[in-house]
């Protein structure tokens, strides 16, 4: 059964059809072609598909597209201001936290949500905020550096 979903993505009103079983991730990637949100485990374990949903970071692979109806969603495509990168994006580049980069959008979204909540996160809060994001390239050192740098700059 197809349903029409009306939602706000990165401040823009969007309306499109989806099956009742379509995940928010599939809706974003395949229907709307927001390819920045990444598909990986499809079980809500790795955080590559993280988006901000009404102010909170969620795994879009285990959220139904139908739940986006009437919601406000921020994806990685919505962070930069024209050519000017968001401070979190810039910090990931500056610290060498981007190796293959596949987990990066999910991390940046989780960190943005953290820094929207608290400007001066403690080490524990940083760890908690990205404990649902898996990175296989960096060993996490440079990701922690990036988050601390972004918090300093904000």
């Amino acid at each position, binding site marked *: 059964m197809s349903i029409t979903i009306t939602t706000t993505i990165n401040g823009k009103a969007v309306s499109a059809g989806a099956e009742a079983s379509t995940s928010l991730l599939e809706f974003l990637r395949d229907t709307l072609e927001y390819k920045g949100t*990444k598909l990986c485990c499809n*079980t809500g374990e790795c955080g590559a598909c993280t988006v901000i949903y009404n102010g909170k970071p969620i795994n879009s692979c285990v959220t139904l597209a139908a739940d986006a109806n009437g919601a406000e969603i921020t994806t990685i495509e919505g*962070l930069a201001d024209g050519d000017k990168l968001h401070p979190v994006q810039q910090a990931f580049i500056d*610290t060498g936290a981007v190796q*293959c*980069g*596949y987990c990066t959008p999910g991390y940046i979204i989780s960190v943005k949500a953290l820094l929207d909540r608290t400007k001066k996160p403690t080490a524990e809060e940083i760890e908690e905020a990205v404990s649902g994001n*898996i990175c*296989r*390239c960096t060993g996490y050192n440079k990701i922690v550096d990036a988050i601390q740098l972004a918090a300093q700059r904000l």
Partner: protein
Amino acid sequence: MAKAEFKVVGTSPARKGGVERVIGKGIYGIDLMLKDQLHGGILRSQYAHAKIISIDTSEAKKIPGVHAVVTAADAPDVRYGRSYFDRYILARNKVRYMGDPVAAVAADSPAVVKQALKKIKVVYEPLPVVIDPEEAMKPEAPTLHEDMPLPKNLPEGVKVKNVCSFAAVRVGDAEKAMAEADVVVNEVYETKMIHPQYLEPRIAAAQVEPNGRITVWANSQGPFPVRQEISKTLGIPLNNVRVIAAELGGGFGGKGSGITSGAAIEPICALLAMKAKRPVMIVLDKAEETISTTIRSGAKLYIKTGVKKDGTIMARIGKVIYDTGGYSGFGAQAGGRCTNMLGGWYLMPNCHIDGYVVYTNKQVCGPVRGPGGPQAAFAVESHMDSIAAKLDMDPGEFRLKNIPKAGDKIVGVPKLRDVSLGETIKIAAEKIGYKKVGAQFIAPALGKNQGIGIATGSWIESAGPGGGAVVKVNEDGSVTVHIGKIDMGTIPGFGIPLIVAEELGVPVEDVTVVNVDTDASPWDAGTVGSRGILVAGTASRLAAIDARNQLFKMAATQLECSPEDLEIVNKQIRVKGTPAKSVSLETVATNAHNVIGEVIGRGYFDNVAAVAEEKAHGSSQPFTTHACIVEVDTMTGNLKILKYVAVHDIGFPIHPVAVEGQIEGAAAMSIGQALCEQVIVDKDGRTMNPSFVDYLMPTINMMPRIETTLIHGYPGSGPYGAKGAGEIACVPPMAAIANAIYNATGVRIKTLPLSPANVLRALKEAGKA
């Protein structure tokens, strides 16, 4: 070479390709979408070992929206493999692991693909399954490959079966030396199968062009091997196959060995596209990927060492049982390396090791990050501590007693050029908290149930073919670089632009490294084996120098001087010492259009020359020592790594931040294998934990801060004295952590992972919990 000699190499500017990665541009293989593309899917064996009696695809073909269904009958009767041709792209007659591809479908939507796969009727005759490689070697075990002969080099009189390949180390007279040793320590270690779990799933997309050629997009580490294998397995002339590399969301060797690594999804996809006459894309589901693609093999390691009372190692006798799974994959290479490395990287005057690479009904061995090394090192470096304990010697001191020096040989390496091993041990000891008092190291004071562990490692980069680079200087003075290596967070984004900028006197921003396209890029074996900087780095440097020579020749005519008098600084070609006498790079590159057409520099890493050089002057391989402090919770078996240091000699770091990133990432991967990672297979060959829900990997909460130290003064064979950095940090972590547990509790755990359940069981057995 000192860092000060250079302007660009040795600095750490932002990675190329960073911006598109942080703003979420769809650049990866998985983001592809071809016009009119169909979705492809693969039917995988439900048995770990069975005869295929029949395959009926008629019902599947009738489903509306299905455009092609293929089986082995649709492909040429051609087998593939890296050194043993024991596998078809789609199983023919037999399946050998649960996940072996049997048939494939192309359809309008993923839902129709799923429906069609269910309608393919395969009649199997199940055969007995063998999961344990030692069982597989016994005469009563089922035979996996009826038509693969046993290795010719098996020792005389050995009665085995299902052995894919055999490797041997024979140095001196190990039996005799062992009999003369004062102390003998005899142990058995075991490591389990892990999956590299790069985050981006494997993909393949294929389309038949109007002229009949086939274009394949792949997120493979080796586009050229993929091209060759598609050509062979589908019977298409090589020049009619074009492979375009998509950006990779991780690989770690898992995407490394041509089509072997992906269980042939590239040729299967091309076959579907040919049959359907439409573009087709296959995206593996993560759980499907965990059971079907290549893994780091489990190994059983028998290790016995004889030493003198003063700690001098006399002899080692060992045996490696290396599990290659249903097919040879990368097993012969990885198992061979593991066998050599069980001999260690210390002085070893007598050594006898037999290495058996064995077929079992499991998924296939791949070239996963440091293939064979971490397994061997877990045994070697745990064993070193066991020997030190028996001798009542400090583990660091015992190691230092046996380190080789320049000119010495170690197992598998006839001659060493420089040896940084001792320096890495000393620095790691200091960094982890040892105090040097006179000639002695004094361990730091530790809390209850805390222990300190140290483990060393080495790695060889000198195996494999060369590779080329082409450097083009454009008419505006910018530079375009073509290499055959892909970017997965490795050199195309980090080191290569710096090397070319250094040699051509241009800003790093003006250098573009082009993604691999087999129609245009120079041939390369792939981004594997820690050889990025050695092969493509050397080739790019030589290509840039070649381009510079062409520029200088033309500029010399104009400036009326000799080419040797020239230099390039900030895109100006000028006479050394007379900077006013100059011409811009832009002018010379533009004028080239009328003289030589274009400035095109060519470079190649000459592997034959490199091997000869190493034979003459010795190997300059990297060494490392890792050390950690671990706290063991004796109630739960849980480990907490309180401090972790990694000391590495990688020669000259071309992009130090990238090098640290490689070291930290590789260490993390083996810390994951030490603490929790394992692909669990039941007696029928079924993977019990295919999804990320059950396959545990380290998250940020589990990981210690890895404190990396790069030491200098031991130049390698790469450009500017660089050594490969991608794999070696995978070697020591598992033993370092196991040694810390031993130091904390007195309990030696010889089987991975060091998970809470396993640690607690070991503590209970020893009466320490």
